[in-house]
């Protein structure tokens, strides 16, 4: 297996980069979507059951099935991969963002309003910073999950290490089948751990000392 890695080092590192890049970009997009939707949901109480429904049903949807449904619509390649990864990445962040924003004490919000802070400023200066630790926790779960979903997205010929897994599966019994599957899996686990470490650092840096646990 060592020889296998050495022989394909350039390809493996390129695929690793693609994999991480796909996940990071999709998670960023997902964060923006999730926080915006959470803001809407927490401002209009009627929307809350809808959001809850989407998150719980969405998470039970098999990613392979969603991918299959998308293929006829958007074709193969990077686009369906981004859509699928973003979709799954959004769900845990959305759930946490709703919980985080709702847990901000009504007293504080009233104080903010009583001081003449507008809606937008209250969101940016009070609600978001206070909900932030909970949102970042969702972000970490979401990133871990997305590493796996991104591998499956390779089924639609998306970028990343997932391609190796499918190659391995296709060649079962062949000389390098196990090597393909193993290298991809171990690679994904290592990258996921590194990303999580990165997020931990970001969490420390972006959370106010006043509310750090």
């Amino acid at each position: 297996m060592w020889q296998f890695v050495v022989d394909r080092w350039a390809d493996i590192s390129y695929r690793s980069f693609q994999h991480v890049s796909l996940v990071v970009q999709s998670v960023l997009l997902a964060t923006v979507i999730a926080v915006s939707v959470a803001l809407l949901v927490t401002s209009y109480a009627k929307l809350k059951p809808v959001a809850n429904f989407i998150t719980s049903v969405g998470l039970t949807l098999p990613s392979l099935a969603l991918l299959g449904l998308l293929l006829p619509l958007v074709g193969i390649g990077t686009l369906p991969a981004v859509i699928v990864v973003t979709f799954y990445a959004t769900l845990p962040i959305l759930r946490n963002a709703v919980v985080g924003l709702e847990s901000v004490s009504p007293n504080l919000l009233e104080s903010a309003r009583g001081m003449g802070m507008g809606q937008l400023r209250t969101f940016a200066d009070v609600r978001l910073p206070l909900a932030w630790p909970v949102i970042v926790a969702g972000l970490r779960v979401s990133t871990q999950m997305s590493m796996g979903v991104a591998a499956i997205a390779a089924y639609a010929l998306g970028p990343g290490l997932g391609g190796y897994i499918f190659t391995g599966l296709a060649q079962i019994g062949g000389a390098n089948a196990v090597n393909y599957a193993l290298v991809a899996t171990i690679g994904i686990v290592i990258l996921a751990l590194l990303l999580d470490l990165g997020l931990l650092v970001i969490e420390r840096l972006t959370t106010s000392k006043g509310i750090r646990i």
Partner: protein
Amino acid sequence: MSTDTDRTPDHSSNTTEVSGVEIVFDEVVKTYPGLQYPAVDRLSITIPAGEIVMFVGPSGCGKTTSLKMINRLLEPTSGTITIDGVDIRKRDDDDLRRHIGFVIQGGSLFPHMTVAQNIAMVPKLLKWDKSRTADRVEELLDLVGLDPGRFRDRFPRELSGGEQQRVGVARGLAADPPVILMDEPFGAVDPITRQRLQDELLTIQEALRKTIVCVTHDIDEAIKLGDRILITEASAKVAQYDTPANILSSPANDFVRDFVGAGSALKTLSLSRVDEVQLYHQSSARVGESLAEVTRRARDHGDRSVILLDRNDRPLDWVWLSDLEGDQIREPRHDRDMLTVSHLATLNDALNSMLVSIHDGVVVTGGNDKYVGVAGFTEVTQLITRKATEAHERETADIARAPSDEELDEQIDEVPDAGSGDDDGDDDDRQRPEGE
């Protein structure tokens, strides 16, 4: 009523300029969907500029609702509220709120912001420049008795309840608004801290003379802090709106009488302030002074103990000469705050503080928390006795005196009460021993 003069040198006799403005409620009604009766029913009162007006009444009578209509956190269903003659509906709501201080229970500080950031919020909204804001933060921390160097960069969770509440008050005062609204501001702290916060509010108000509207359910707090008290029944119906002295000496009806409760003669003690007590000028010693010098000075003065002061003349500790060591006076080793009362504290407060002191007196502070003297146990109790006697004599005199026609008109409701000797007879029996 004659008791009017009872009040300590009133704020109105002060030389300080009034910075507050008048607030008028005109037939203000507030109904909530789902509530059968109005939360506030045709409330009409005038809150004079530069006074502290206390809203008191049983829980759910509409105090908070009335208060929040002043800064438009709630909109009246009908009626008008004017501030300084301007209908508040004519003003942009956020702009209006930036010019009205708002202080609620516990301070309600933003936990993710430092003390300085919390206080600087409204100045920031008003786009003050950085240096002006920073100067203002220092000034306010000083004003509420928190050392800026120690507290500026702390987070709320690193503060005690009392300190948080002080920051809350500083935040309310930040942009120097003419009007401050407070909703049960001192409800969440222990009694000793509460008394200090009340004293500090009075000291601050002495200098600033804002219009302060403060909600409380504690009649004693209302008597102590209020220039005027609004006592309301359900739906914010006015039971009486008057000075503390008048409410105590002539409650308008049974509701007020019940609400003020028993011992209203004792409560008049809350109208007497520590600055009426003959203070004793206990020797003091500043940190850094030579011990020999301090000892000589204290002995000459006939004292066996001294008050330790910091560089700003704020009392740090009350120590026996025999406990002092070394060549120089050193800072006390402990970090606990010293128990003092402000010259604006009530006699009740002074008495309470003495009960937990090891000396038979309590240290009194003036403006900027500077040391002014010691109120001795004997002096305080003598003044209390004298006040009680006076109150008692006045009551008996009032009953004996034949009211003029005019007064009879005014008091027409009360005549049956005043005449039905039974109650008053009991009162007399209870009070006589105190007077003698």
